[in-house]
Each structure stands twice: as C-alpha cells, then as structure tokens.
C-alpha cells in the first residue's frame, strides 16, 4: 500500500480544500449572475437591476430581514451565555462530567427532529399544556395562541438554542485544555476569586478567541436556517431564507431571478449579523478592561450559577420532554385535548408508515455512509500530512474549514442548482452526496483533529526504528490506535449528514427523498402521529451510528483495554 499512502497524503489536503471551497465559491458565483438578470438557460441575456427592484418591493421584506438578523444574534448570544455561565459555575464538578457524557448524543439529534419534538411539546395542544390542563390552566380546549410560529420567532430561537448549546459546549471542551483553563482557574481561585468570577476573569479571555469561529458558525446558521424555521418559525412573513426557498421552488421559473437576488441578500444579512457581533465583541472587550482588573473576587457567583443550572436543566428537560412527546404521539390513536396520555396506545401509526419508510431510510443511510466515508478519508489524509510534516494547520486552512458553516447554505446551494441547470448536469444522489460531504467534512475534522494531534509522536519514532516505513506506521500503528476516536468522528459525520435538509432538497431537485426531507415536509402538514414516527426514525439513525461507534471497539478490542482508555 505504500504508493497509495504517499499519493493519498499528498492529495488529501488539496482535495479537502477543494471540496470545502469550490462549492461555496462556485455556488456564490452561480447566484450572482442571475441576481443581475443573467441566466441564459432561463432566457436571461441582459444585465439588469429589475430583479432587485422586484425583491425590494416585496411586501414584508423588512420583517423577513429583521427576523433573520435578530434570530442569528439572539440565539447565538443566549447559547453562548448559557455555555459560559455553565462552564464557569460547574467546571470540575460531578454535574459537569454527567452533562459532558450527554453531549455527543445531544449533538447527534438532527435539527429537524429537535424542532418537531419541541413543537409537539410547547404547542397550545402540546404535551406541556396537556399536563397542566385542565387542572392548573382550566383549559378545556387548546388556547388560541400562535406558538410555535409566533411572529417574533421565539419558538425558532428556542429550538436553535437547544441545538447550539451542546455544539458550543463540545467546542469549548476541546478548547479548554488549549488555553490552560485548569491552571488559570486554580491560580485565580488561590487568589480568592469565586469560581464563576475566576472563570470569567481569567479563563474566558483565553477561551473566547478559540470559540470565535464556532460562534460565527452558530450566528451564520441561525440567521439562515431553513428546516428549523419551517417547523418553528413564523410564516407571514417567514425568515428570509425560507422566503428565498419558496421563490426558487415557485413553478414560475422567472421567479428564480428574484430568488437569486434574495439569496445574495441573505448573504448580506448574515454578514451584517456577523459584523454586528464583531462590533459588540469589540465594545465588550473595551468595557470589560477595567472590570477584569478591579480586584472584585465575587460578582454574584451563586446567583449567576443558579441561572446557569436553571438554563441547562431547562434545556435537558425540554429535550427529554420532546422525546417523550414524540414517542407518545407516534403511539397515539385517539388523543383528545386535555388528556395527558393517549388511550389506547397502538402500533398502527408505525405499521401504516412501514411500507413507505424503506426508501427514505435507505436513501438517507446510503448518502450518509458514502459522504462520511469520503469525508473521513480526506480528513485522515489531511491530518496525516500535517503529522508527517510536523507543521501545524495554518490559520487560513482553519478558515476554509469553517467556510461552509459561515456562508449561508441557501445562498451557495442555490447557486449550485443554477449551475446544474445551466450546464445540464443531472440532479441526483451523486450531487446530494457531494453536497452533504461539504457539511460533513468540517465536523469530522473538528472531532478527530484533537485526538490525531495528541497521539504521542514517540509511537511513530518507535515503529520507524523497529523498521516500519511511514506507510506501515500509518496502517499498522496510527490508524488502529486511533480507531476509537475515528469511529466517533465518523458517527458525528453520519449524524450531520442525516440532519441535512437543504442540500438534499436542492441538489436532488426533489428526486431524492430522505427521512429528513420527509419529516420536514410532514411537519408542515397536520398529521402529528405520522410526523412523530418520521422524527423518531430520523433521530434513531444517528443514535444507531453512535451506538455502533461506541460499542464496536468495546467488542473488537475487549482484550486490548489500553486502547479503550487511552483514546
């Protein structure tokens, strides 16, 4: 295998960079020309600003923009606040290690499934209101409140926060050792600072720069989300990204010109949200300068710690409640309003759906497995090249890694669709797989890099001095020793692929349907029972992936305990 190894190590970094940047850059380019009227395939041969005028005259555009912008900033701010307060108040406690174990499974919950579960929990006729009715509320009928789908987007923000908190926590866990958090914290505690004050004053200034890109990714995602907005967001008007999706799916093909302009506008809104955050960051840094050095040891540590505990407990409660709600609805037959539990329980919904489930499940699994495999090979190749040349990843490479997470996907994916149309490339499963890989690769990289870089270089030295070539060291030493983190990273990648809605929808041109696209479109209809079945299956697939990733090594390496503990 030596030659394929050498070739792989040489090519993988460049292939990974191409996979990450080409679709984003190409997609954006593909959306610019039509936005100004140029798309020969649809008869647009002249440059014009007319489509921008149509867009700007669209009723409710201001509200759409505002909704996207505010959602992006508020959900990121709330998520960050919860994460920071929780880390500050509970790092080095037993609660923290318990939550830590829950993180990866929580992260694996697809956005759509979490949003559907939350909708079923908090809706006026949801599980929560049933539990309190009629006893506490006195409601005999579900109250007439628009939630989810409230005009302020609060339900949507809640859904996003629920998913972004585990993401930011996981990113922090990787970053904490890099900024010597434990040492800094111990030092400040020894100087008499309360736990949270110590964290905020000495750890956070080191931690924040390492969290900046993940936070920007959160803002970008939240300001341009489509699936969460479709399920939890307001409809008249919807957030901008949803509107863009509607325009580009309009049977009137000439709407695509305006949709292109809308996609570019979405990019602008996301950039504006990022710029605002950057400005706030700057101001906070300025204002905090004196506070950092004012010598106050306690700053309401207990109070803020209580808030953190409350927020994290509430998040966990919402997730658990969503799960219970989904299960109950999937088993419900007749379930009139104030009843807290459906009577009787039935498997009819599952049996009824069984016939139609095969295809979307197989499609989702195929796309997920191939996209994960492709991403994992490129990531391992890139990390191996980095190890071999003993040089750290450069800052620009880090930025490229985050590119697909920072550019609103509706903008560049739509550009790719237009290119597809223009060059006459057939939409289908291959395009969908590549589209998924663009989003899967960064997550596989982020979850594997830390373990890969931490592997003691002496293992390599030792194996080389025992006569093994670099290729043999890779196949016979490094790869098997990293099999546990590698499988975990693959499970993360698979979960990300299962969760993808927009790339499947757009690049598959409606011909590729996965469990996720089905679940999102069902959620828009009225059948809660069937929706619950789909959402649970959508949730089960990544869970199965994680179970395999955690269980398989324990089975295969049950007599190699050093491998399980070291990883």
């Amino acid at each position, binding site marked *: 295998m030596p030659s394929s190894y050498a070739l792989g190590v040489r090519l993988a970094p460049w292939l990974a960079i191409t996979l990450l940047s080409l679709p984003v850059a190409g997609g954006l380019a593909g959306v610019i020309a039509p936005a100004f009227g140029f798309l020969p395939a649809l008869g647009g041969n002249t440059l014009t600003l007319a489509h921008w005028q149509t867009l700007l005259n669209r009723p409710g555009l201001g509200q759409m923009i505002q909704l996207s912008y505010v959602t992006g900033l508020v959900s990121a701010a709330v998520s960050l606040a919860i994460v920071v307060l929780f880390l500050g108040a509970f790092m080095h406690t037993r609660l923290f290690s318990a939550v830590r174990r829950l993180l990866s499974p929580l992260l694996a919950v697809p956005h759509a499934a979490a949003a559907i579960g939350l909708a079923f929990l908090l809706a006026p006729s949801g599980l929560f209101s049933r539990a309190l009715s009629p006893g506490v509320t006195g409601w005999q009928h579900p109250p007439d409140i628009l939630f989810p789908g409230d005009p302020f987007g609060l339900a949507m923000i809640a859904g996003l926060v629920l998913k972004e908190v585990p993401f930011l926590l996981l990113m922090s866990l990787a970053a904490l050792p890099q900024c010597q958090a434990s040492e800094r914290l111990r030092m400040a505690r020894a100087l008499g600072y309360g736990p949270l004050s110590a964290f905020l004053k000495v750890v956070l200034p080191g931690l924040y720069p390492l969290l900046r890109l993940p936070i920007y990714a959160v803002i970008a995602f939240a300001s341009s989300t489509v699936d969460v907005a479709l399920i939890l967001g307001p409809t008249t008007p919807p957030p901008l990204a949803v509107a863009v999706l509607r325009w580009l799916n309009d049977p009137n093909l000439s709407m695509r010109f305006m949709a292109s302009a809308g996609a570019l506008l979405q990019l602008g809104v996301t950039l504006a949200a990022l710029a605002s955050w950057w400005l706030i960051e700057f101001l906070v840094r300025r204002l905090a300068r004196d506070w950092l050095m004012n010598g106050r040891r306690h700053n309401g540590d207990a109070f803020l710690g209580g808030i953190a505990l409350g927020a994290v407990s509430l998040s966990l409660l919402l997730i658990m409640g969503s799960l219970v709600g989904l299960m109950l609805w999937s088993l419900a037959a007749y379930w009139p309003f104030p009843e807290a539990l459906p009577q009787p329980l039935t498997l009819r919904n599952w049996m009824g759906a069984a016939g139609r489930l095969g295809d979307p499940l197989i499609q989702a699994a195929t796309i997920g497995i191939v996209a994960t495999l492709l991403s994992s090979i490129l990531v391992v190749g890139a990390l191996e090249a980095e190890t071999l040349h003993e*040089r750290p990843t450069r800052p620009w490479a880090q930025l490229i890694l985050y590119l697909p997470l920072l550019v609103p996907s509706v903008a560049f994916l739509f550009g790719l669709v237009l290119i597809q149309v223009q060059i006459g490339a057939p939409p289908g499963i291959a395009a969908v797989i590549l589209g998924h890989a663009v989003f899967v690769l960064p997550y596989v990289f982020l979850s594997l890099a830390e373990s890969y870089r931490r592997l003691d270089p002496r*293992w*390599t030295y030792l194996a080389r*001095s*025992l006569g093994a*070539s670099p290729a043999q060291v890779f196949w016979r030493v490094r790869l098997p020793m990293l099999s546990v983190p590698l499988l975990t990273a693959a499970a993360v990648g698979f979960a990300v692929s299962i969760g993808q809605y927009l790339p499947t929808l757009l690049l598959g041109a409606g011909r590729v349907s996965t469990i996720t696209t089905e679940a999102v479109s069902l959620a828009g209809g009225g059948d809660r029972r069937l929706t619950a079945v789909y959402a649970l299956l959508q949730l089960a697939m990544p869970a199965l992936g994680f179970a395999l990733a955690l269980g398989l090594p324990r089975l295969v390496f049950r007599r*190699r*305990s050093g491998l399980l503990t070291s990883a």
Partner: protein
Amino acid sequence: MQPLILENVHITLEGNPLLGIDTTIAPGEVLTVMGPSGVGKSTLLAYIAGFLSPAFSARGRIWLGEHELTRLPAEARRVGLLFQDSLLFPHLSVGGNLAFGMTADGSRRKRQQRVEAVLKEIGLEGFASRDPATLSGGQRSRVALMRVLLSEPRAMLLDEPFSQLDTALRDEMRQLVFQRVKQENLPTLMVTHDAADAEAAGGRVIELAI
C-alpha cells in the same frame, strides 16, 4: 558489530547552538550523556535515529562503522530505541508487539516459536496472547527491551530508560539492559539525568551544560 560514530555533530534551535558532540562508541560500550533538561539530550537521540523535528537544525554525520546513516530514512538505520515508558502498542498482543519488529522472513510458525522463546527468556512464558495493558510495569519494560532486540538493531539509544520505574525494579532493569547490550555487542548511547544510571552503565560519561 561496528562502532557508532558521531562526527562533529552540532544541533541548533532556531539559530542558537544547543549542543556539540564528536565521539566514537565502540561495540558493547555504553556511553552516557548527562545534563539538565532542556539541554537537548533527547534531540541528539532524535537526530541519530532520524526524527529531528523541523524546529531544529543539525550538521555533522552519523556512521555505523563504514556505513553512513545521516541521509537514511529512520526505518533503514537499524538503530534501536528505548524510552522511559515501555510504549507497548495497545492494539497488539504481547506476542504481536514482539513480532512487530522482527524481519518478515521465516515461516509463521518459526516467528511464533521465536516469540515464545524470547518470552520464556524473560520469565513470561505463555504471555504471547496477553493484552499488554494487563502486564505489570516491570513485565512491560522487559517486553519493550526484547521487542527492540528482536528487530536486530546495530546500535542502541536509551532515552532515560529507567526513570519511570520504582527503585527495586530500576536496579533489576539496569542490569538486564546493560547485560543484554553487552552480550549483543551493541554500541549504546544513553541519555539520563540520574547519576546512578551512569554508574551502573560503567562507561564513559559526557556532561552537557546549557
């Protein structure tokens, strides 16, 4: 066996000279290099074995008798390494660890017999299929030593090889290691900060200072 020759070796870190050495280590001789941490002892071993990190630069040549090593890739140098941790591959059995360094020739059975014989030699008969994580510290060190010797090195480099062992084990391992390298007539370079190691080696000592 042939001597290990370090010809005018000079190592620099980002332009600052770190250490210089010019010596010949005879077959069966153990040369001890001593000095405080940060003086570049392990860097010297990395240079000889062929893994100098790009932060460092070095000049000077390494020879095994008439045979120059300086430009050879690490796996072709046949220089054995022993670290302070035994570093048994956790994904391989004890027997697998020993077989890893053996040359690929000979039948499967022959190789297996060789492994069994070596295990018997170090008092670990029947341990071939064991998980290395279940071994005691002393047992691991012995397996690590035999793994290097089975790869038939032409010279040995010892990087603080005994510093992780407790006192009783340390004496035992010192004896075993020095006895084996002398028996195999290997030119050996040991870096350590423990004067007792140097004393036990009983050879020349070079002191490095910052």
